[in-house]
């Protein structure tokens, strides 16, 4: 994109600079994530590994970098990007900066489907589990997320408008229902399944393997690829369904694509990392402050920023209580909940008033 003197009110330059800055931040976050951990394999060892002078590394150090750190970093990157982009898309779809897959119960739906996959995978869902193999869990979570996003949209939207109050209250109700059903499944679960289920509630990048990375790569990859195709439509949608149609946007098709994308990003991340809250609300919110609300920069920025934020949070989670690990969901909630509260009460943004 050629740079030219900025026209007043045009935030294209700001957007480009912030994207560049976020790319640098993401690279740094990757290095930190690869070079930090309880085993003492540090940035120096990473450097010797990358430059090929790996004779100085022991086999153990190589294994830690290749089999532990690298898949974990890759997973963190994908999960963070997926969570932040799904948050930003959902906020555009609902025309509401408070819409977050975690808060409005989409994550709960995906989690319910994932728990169902764990508990019933050997029972009535066994044929499905056999058929889908390693994609069973992510696909189940995707359809769980899809169902809840769709239900939320149908219930909370009247005449194409989704009010904050309706959105959050419906989200709570749908989330509570999902939780109740999850409780029912947990009641039926055996000990091994219970251990697996506990993992969802905490949310963690621990246990990252290349298999998990490759199982969510197609979901997150697909969502990232559609960004350029939905960005303009989501911008137009901010003016309302009618105005978006007048500007040539096929509104219903756009909404379907976005709902599926949100469910894909959110469901697949829940499948591999459990429920990690608030990334989808902090990242887009902070980015809007510096680059404006236009989705052509907000969505790629969210992908970069979400990846960086999750990798940093994960590095913190791994080191503050080493050799034990804090659940990463705790860290994101510690930062995210105040941002959410600030948004909810903020003078210059949305209060509990109903806005289209």
């Amino acid at each position: 994109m050629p740079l030219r003197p900025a026209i007043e009110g045009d935030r294209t330059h700001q957007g480009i600079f912030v994207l560049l800055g976020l790319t640098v931040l993401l690279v740094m976050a990757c290095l930190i994530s690869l070079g930090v951990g309880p085993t003492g394999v540090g940035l120096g060892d990473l450097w010797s590994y990358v430059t090929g002078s790996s004779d100085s590394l022991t086999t153990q150090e190589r294994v830690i970098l290749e089999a532990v750190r690298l898949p974990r970093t890759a997973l963190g990157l994908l999960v963070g990007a997926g969570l932040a982009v799904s948050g930003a898309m959902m906020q555009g779809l609902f025309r509401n900066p408070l819409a977050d897959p975690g808060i409005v119960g989409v994550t709960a739906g995906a989690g319910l489907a994932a728990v169902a996959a764990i508990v019933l995978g050997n029972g009535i869902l066994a044929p499905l589990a056999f058929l889908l193999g390693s994609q069973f869990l992510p696909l189940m979570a995707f359809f769980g997320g899809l169902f809840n996003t769709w239900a939320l949209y149908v219930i909370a939207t009247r005449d194409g408008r989704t009010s904050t109050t309706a959105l959050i209250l419906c989200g709570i109700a749908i989330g509570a229902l999902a939780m109740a059903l999850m409780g029912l499944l947990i009641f039926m679960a055996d000990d091994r399944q219970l251990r697996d289920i506990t993992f969802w509630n905490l949310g963690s990048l621990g246990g990252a393997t290349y298999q998990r990375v490759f199982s969510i790569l197609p979901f997150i990859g697909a969502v990232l690829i559609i960004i350029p195709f939905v960005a303009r439509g989501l911008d137009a949608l901010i003016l309302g369904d009618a105005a978006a149609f007048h500007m040539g946007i096929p509104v219903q098709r756009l909404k379907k694509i976005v709902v599926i994308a949100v469910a894909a990003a959110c469901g697949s991340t829940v499948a591999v990392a459990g429920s990690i809250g608030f990334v989808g609300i902090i990242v887009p919110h902070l980015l809007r402050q510096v680059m404006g609300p236009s989705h052509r920069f907000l969505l790629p920025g969210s992908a970069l920023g979400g990846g960086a934020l999750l990798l940093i949070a994960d590095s913190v989670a791994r080191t503050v209580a080493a050799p034990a690990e804090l659940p990463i969901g705790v860290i994101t909630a510690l930062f995210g909940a105040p941002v959410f509260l600030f948004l909810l009460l903020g003078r210059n943004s949305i209060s509990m008033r109903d806005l289209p």
Partner: protein
Amino acid sequence: MITAENITVARGGKNLITSVDIELRPGCFTVVIGPNGAGKSTLMKVLSGEMRPDNGCVTYHGKDLHNCRPEDLARCRAVLPQATQLAFPFTALEIARMGAVAHGALDPTEQAKKALTRVGLHGFERRPYPSLSGGEQQRVQFARALAQVPAAVTNGVPNALFLDEPTASLDLGHQISVLETARDFAAAGGIVLAILHDLNLAAEFADHLVVLHGGRVIKAGVCADTITDDVIAKVYGIGGAVGRLPAAHMPYVLPQSRHR
């Protein structure tokens, strides 16, 4: 030419508009008037393609509206909606640019800036939309519509401008200037349809006036034939309010002079 034939829209078991025929001709400023609930906005939604009628059909230059893709429609007609609120702080320029992008402008930012200047908002480009007054917001939306159809005619095909109560939150000066811009668009060969509540503005600007009442067209024609004591009494329930400016033969409505 945009033609609607025998349009009927029913919602919730009630007809919003019934068997309405209307023809929007190039070079003609068409104004729809009528009391609240007469079906004016519904008619505009049908004509802009936003709402599908239960009966009847709309054609754009002979082509059925529902066979047109949204992106093609967007290049030949723009709509100014009634008051729009935003949950996200786009700048005035960014809003107007959305129209320019829908038009397919090569340099949408520059087009948006021009459109803002046309509605007298030069210097407002970087103002966040939510911080603007109601009237200023309305003019930003008008700029967006103008950026979407910057020329009245493209390749010999007239473009259309639909304005839903364009003067609602504007002061007198800006009411006139918005309608003058629309009249210029029509004079240059474009199609203009506006919903107005102010009968005097309607009488001054309309080349063709359509009076809608209870979902039906009561009267259509030039203003001297449509804004008459009979029609105004029947539609609005006030008699004796219509006067005439002798020189121009232009009717004016003075509610203070009504029969009590």
